[in-house]
């Protein structure tokens, strides 16, 4: 019985890393132990299933522009949080905090998004 209890706890702990975003894919590809904060310009806001994306262009420390793919939930989940398909427009300057991709690519899962003036881009309803 004790063995099963331990297994249960272990499974819950590991599975917590892998629960699919409210349907679709596991979050194991993102490093939840890290956060990356970026300020950049929206090139495109993809409001489409199964995941919305902010394509954000930032200028890196070498002065070179690089584009990041910032993954969000499905449109239905964004709507519940007050987002609309035109909440972001190309050219908008925003700040994002994300959990980066484990493979080091320029992408991650969104944690916080704010307008350049610090206004939260969430819960606008």
């Amino acid at each position, binding site marked *: 019985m004790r063995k099963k209890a331990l297994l249960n706890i272990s499974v819950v702990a590991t*599975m917590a890393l892998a629960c699919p*975003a409210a*349907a679709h894919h*596991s979050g194991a*590809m993102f490093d939840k132990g890290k956060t990356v904060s970026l300020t950049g310009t929206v090139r495109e806001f993809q409001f489409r299933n199964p995941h919305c994306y902010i394509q954000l262009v930032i200028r890196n420390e070498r002065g070179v522009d690089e584009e990041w793919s910032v993954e969000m*939930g*499905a*449109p*239905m*989940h964004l709507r519940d949080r007050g987002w609309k398909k035109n909440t972001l427009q190309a050219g908008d300057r925003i700040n994002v905090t994300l959990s980066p991709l484990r493979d080091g690519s320029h992408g991650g899962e969104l944690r916080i998004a704010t307008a350049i003036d610090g206004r939260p881009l969430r819960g606008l309803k």
Partner: protein
Amino acid sequence: VSDRFAATGMAIFALAAPALAWAQASNSQGTPSCAADMARIGGDWGGLWIAENMEVDMNGREMPGGVPLLHGMKFSALSAPWSDEGWSRIGDTVRMGLSEATNIGGWSYPLMMSSPAPFKFIISPGETAIISQYRDIRYVYTDGRGHEPDDERWATPWGDSTGCWDGGTLTIETVGVRYVPAYTFLSPPLSENAHFVERMRVVAPGRIESEVTVMDAETLTQPWQVHMVYLRHPANDRLVHDGETYENDRLVFEGGSATISDPADAVPAARSPARPSVELSAAQLDRVVGSYTFDGTPAKLTIERRGDRLFSRIDPFRPLFLPMQADDDLSFFSPTDGVSIRFIADGAGRIRRFEGKSPDNTPIAGARDE
């Protein structure tokens, strides 16, 4: 099967069976019926509902500071009182949960009743449908019918449900549920003989509570009892089905690891704008209407006019009419499959032949049937 399971299961059955029988006997002024008496249902079952603690953030995962989704999903594979057989079955769940490659298509039953997907009830006297945002659908027949016979029923991810309304309480029995890990690996891997009983009612405005008992002697040590709370969705009153249109699926694997594809790879190929055409009179169109035979073959080209547009059909290769657009009064093309045809007139101006190209640019030609 443990004695404990058998004893407890019998007790649950003993409680559930009279409840169902009583509901059948007492509804609709004493006439045995399970149908919803719309005047007696009481409470407001309308709107959109979501399991308690299952609202998600804008990234599709748990709310900041909220209950982790897996802990909140009371019907997840991690919550059941598994027997040794049950524990042996959650290997798929663990393996798929730890894999970056895992996708899910929806939630299935019973997980859809404790998932982050809102759902709604559609209630009519003889049937109640429970429809989730991810298009998981349960039909609960309340017209008095039983389950399909064993030899006619096959197990599905949603099962076969019958129900009884007793005033404002809906009791649902579900059987024939199949665990399909490729669809929802997090759902409990019960056997296909599992038996589910739910009793749900509106206990306060915007709050439904449900007592659920799952019995499965093959995989559980005892009946699995779950208390569910459903809350009217605080931010949403409209069901939008958008769960399986994966047009923006950017999950890819590179070097054995999951990552996000380049955005250019996810953008659908640019569609060419519609090719312009010229407008022709009915008389000009009628000039080419008729039947033609391809040179050297029995294949037929048929041209007919429908209003201000020509349609072509090519038997036996394309036995359906598709619209044609005009480049001029003798040259036409199909915007649908790319066939192009130029008609050729004789000295008297009567159309005698055609030539052109097939969709793969093969030259085609033929003569008008006399």
